[in-house]
């Protein structure tokens, strides 16, 4: 049945050149057409509704005037944003989150890049042990580290500084980043590097000239992971920082939530402020993300 259907469709197509000349292409078209359109669009549409209604709800509550009942984002007012940005201090929280996010992005990427290269290209004593240890760290509950990390940061005088967050974020991001980057480097043929050495490059120059450019999807994936995770982290920021000028966006948002009578307009506007950077970063990198994943650790 399937075959007749497909053949029928193929014959309907006026522009198709003699099929004999393009056998592979015809097959590919056929397999692409096997799923009927509605079988894609109906479930996809339903799922999009589930995904987007919550975002839409937040947007509407953020921009509509006080006392309005409308579910349409019109007329637009920015008073809620003014309240959260200036009144509740989200302007400062935003800066803090941004600094922590960028610092842990840079630290994670650089450390994981150098370590990942060692893991991928050298066989050294302790390598296996390190690999196993990295896998084990994935089972450590973040909540479990609160007590001892707090004690460490207190000893180092880092409590109530953003550095405590940068360190904690970076360390928690490192294992996954190392696994991803070393998996990616292993997939780059050694011959390319060797060719660079033959041409007189040092190992370091060879790395920058040959390996680094090919690592772009992996670096984008690792860097954006680090940024998004640190932007989103709540528990560390809640525990290690108690001065309001050092709060990050999620902590500020949690305080807005914790008020006895929640100001829903402000909550929604704070939510938009919290969502915007990560959703934008995500929109730009999501194509690389799937690429980076499939070439990295998961495929094996």
């Amino acid at each position, binding site marked *: 049945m399937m075959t007749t259907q497909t053949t029928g469709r193929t014959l309907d197509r006026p522009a198709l050149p003699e099929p004999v000349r393009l056998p592979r292409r015809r097959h590919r078209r056929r397999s692409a057409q096997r799923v009927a359109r509605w079988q894609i669009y109906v479930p996809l549409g339903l799922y999009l509704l589930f995904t987007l209604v919550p*975002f839409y709800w937040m947007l509407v509550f953020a921009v509509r005037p006080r006392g309005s009942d409308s579910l349409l984002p019109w007329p637009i007012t920015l008073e809620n944003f003014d309240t959260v940005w200036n009144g509740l201090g989200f302007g400062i929280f935003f800066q803090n989150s941004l600094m922590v996010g960028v610092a842990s992005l840079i630290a994670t990427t650089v450390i994981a890049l150098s370590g990942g290269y060692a893991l991928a290209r*050298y066989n050294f004593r302790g390598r296996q042990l390190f690999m196993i240890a990295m896998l084990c760290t994935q*089972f450590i509950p973040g909540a479990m580290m609160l*007590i001892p990390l707090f004690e460490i940061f207190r000893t180092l005088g880092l409590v109530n500084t953003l550095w405590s967050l940068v360190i904690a974020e970076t360390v928690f991001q490192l294992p996954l980043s190392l696994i991803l980057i070393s998996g990616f480097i292993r997939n780059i043929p050694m011959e390319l590097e060797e060719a660079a050495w033959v041409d007189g490059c040092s190992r370091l120059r060879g790395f920058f000239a040959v390996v680094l450019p090919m690592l772009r999807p992996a670096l984008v994936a690792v860097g954006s992971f680090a940024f998004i995770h640190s932007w989103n*982290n709540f528990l560390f920021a809640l525990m290690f920082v108690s001065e309001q000028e050092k709060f990050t966006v999620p902590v500020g948002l949690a305080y807005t939530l914790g008020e006895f009578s929640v100001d829903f307009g402000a909550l929604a506007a704070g939510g938009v402020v919290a969502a915007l950077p990560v*959703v934008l970063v995500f929109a730009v990198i999501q194509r690389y993300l799937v690429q980076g994943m499939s070439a990295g650790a998961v495929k*094996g």
Partner: protein
Amino acid sequence: MAIAQAPPRERARPARAPRTPYVLIAPAVIAMLAFLVYPMASVVYYSLQHYNVSKPWDNAFAGLDNFRTLLFDDPLFWQSLAFSAKWVVTEVALQLVFGLALALIVNETFIGRAVSRALVFSPWAVSGVLTTGIWVLLYNPTTGVSRYLADLGLMNYGAAPLANPDTVFWAAVLAELWRGVPFFAILLLADLQTVSRDLYEAASVDGASRLRRFLHITLPHLKDAIILSTLLRAVWEFNNVDLLYTLTGGGPAHQTTTLPLYVATTAAQSHNFGYGSALTTAAFLILTFFSIAYLRLSKFGAR
């Protein structure tokens, strides 16, 4: 998995610089020793101590006292453990089913695919606290969906899913699902794209139905990715406390308290670091045990 195998080309190692790999990996090792391994060891040490910041006069070596309390005198430990299991199994199972379906859909060729992918994956980037913020709006009786449905005469006014003990679990599950499905969709889509087209073509030439192709080609190909992603996600769902901490606070009446949430509140509110550390050690051991058992039973990596 690739990380377990030795690097392919040892001959490329320059003999004159055996120190290079150690230098390269030193920053990672030092950071992880200082801020992961040492804290973990100190958790195990504290778990054997009576250590309460607010009652320093009682601090002393405790032996296994904390663990005895945990096993025999603390119903909340068992309750939170049972809830953790229920939470993790429900979330991971539902996220896997929807995530796989979503990955299969957006792996097809259709108009608007790139935009659809970006949109359906986007909640992945949203934090637990923000998820709470959004779903509090949606669930609230005066601002939520139920109120607007009631305006249309489709529901009664006043539904408050988060305050009602019968619905709070599913209300939390739905909110976490919203944010969790994209994780599976992204990972499984990445793996789907490595399935060879030729296999499908050969199978369809042989007259295999779509269901059979899915069962005999797609699923076996995805097996390792499914095992790994469910494991990672289960560990993550077990450990992550942001959403429940802010959405339900573990309530009503500890009904939605997971073990790590119990740890966090024990540490933050009662300052009983000794007992909190014992709970943590228990959580870590349980998690490691189940993870290894899962990898063994699912025959990860076996072809």
